[in-house]
């Protein structure tokens, strides 16, 4: 398949073709984060097992978070062999509004980092996985009283205890593809992104 050519519209039930190269970027603040090194090692080992070429940078500053993402995108766009999947792991302390805190204590918005990669031509139509291990605020879920509980905790207490797939997922529709603006479904920058936060919005990640 020509990586720069028109992207075929996915058929229902289709699966991403991951037969080409895979690339991963792991940016982890490990300073003053006990156990973070264990996460880096575990995730690095998994990426290797799954065939990802992994770039690791520890203790990036807030600016370095953005620079590393930009360089990662540039490398993907200029490499000879196309990639079929990208994984980005961002691990740091989090600010009260969901910011990531670099090793210098300065803030960077994770959404800005995601945007950086959503414009990557080499990844057009390819899955882009983001793992965010960071606090998203200071709320600690104590799970009190079923009527006053956050929605996710009510799931846990109500039988059956397992939240359904549909409950957990917040599906962001392909707005461009659903609009009547004349775009093809494959032209949306926001498609093919999977973001996994370690905590719900506003909450502490453990």
């Amino acid at each position, binding site marked *: 398949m020509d990586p720069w050519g028109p992207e075929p519209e*996915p058929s229902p039930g289709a699966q991403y073709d991951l037969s080409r190269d895979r690339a991963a970027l792991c940016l982890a603040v490990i300073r003053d984060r006990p156990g973070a090194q264990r996460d880096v090692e575990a995730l690095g080992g998994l990426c290797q097992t799954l065939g990802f070429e992994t770039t690791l940078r520890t203790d990036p500053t807030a600016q370095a978070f953005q620079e590393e993402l930009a360089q990662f995108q540039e490398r993907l766009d200029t490499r000879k062999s196309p990639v079929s999947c990208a994984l980005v792991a961002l691990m740091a302390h989090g600010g009260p509004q969901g910011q990531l805190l670099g090793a210098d204590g300065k803030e960077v918005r994770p959404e800005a980092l995601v945007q950086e990669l959503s414009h990557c031509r080499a990844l057009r139509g390819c899955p882009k996985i983001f793992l965010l291990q960071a606090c998203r605020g200071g709320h600690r879920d104590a799970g009190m009283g079923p009527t006053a509980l956050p929605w996710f*905790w009510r799931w*846990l207490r109500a039988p059956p*205890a397992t939240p359904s797939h549909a409950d*957990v*997922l917040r599906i962001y529709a*392909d707005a461009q593809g659903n609009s009547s603006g004349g775009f093809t479904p494959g032209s949306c920058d926001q498609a*093919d992104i999977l973001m996994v936060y*370690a905590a719900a919005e506003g909450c502490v990640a*453990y």
Partner: protein
Amino acid sequence: RDEKGSDFIQTLVEVLRATPEGDLLELLTEVNRQVCELDVRGPDCNERRKACLEIRSSLRRRLCLQ
């Protein structure tokens, strides 16, 4: 997160290593189930707390990493 690493990353790695051929969204649901079952204690409190992942997807196809 404690000296063994974070609940999210460690559970994720464990689940994906056990079933790498599975649909990633389904595997993440399983990761979330396991994380939600954990009782955690923050560094500055003795009360048990809960955590829950948030998964956002605009994937258009099944995603299987192996």
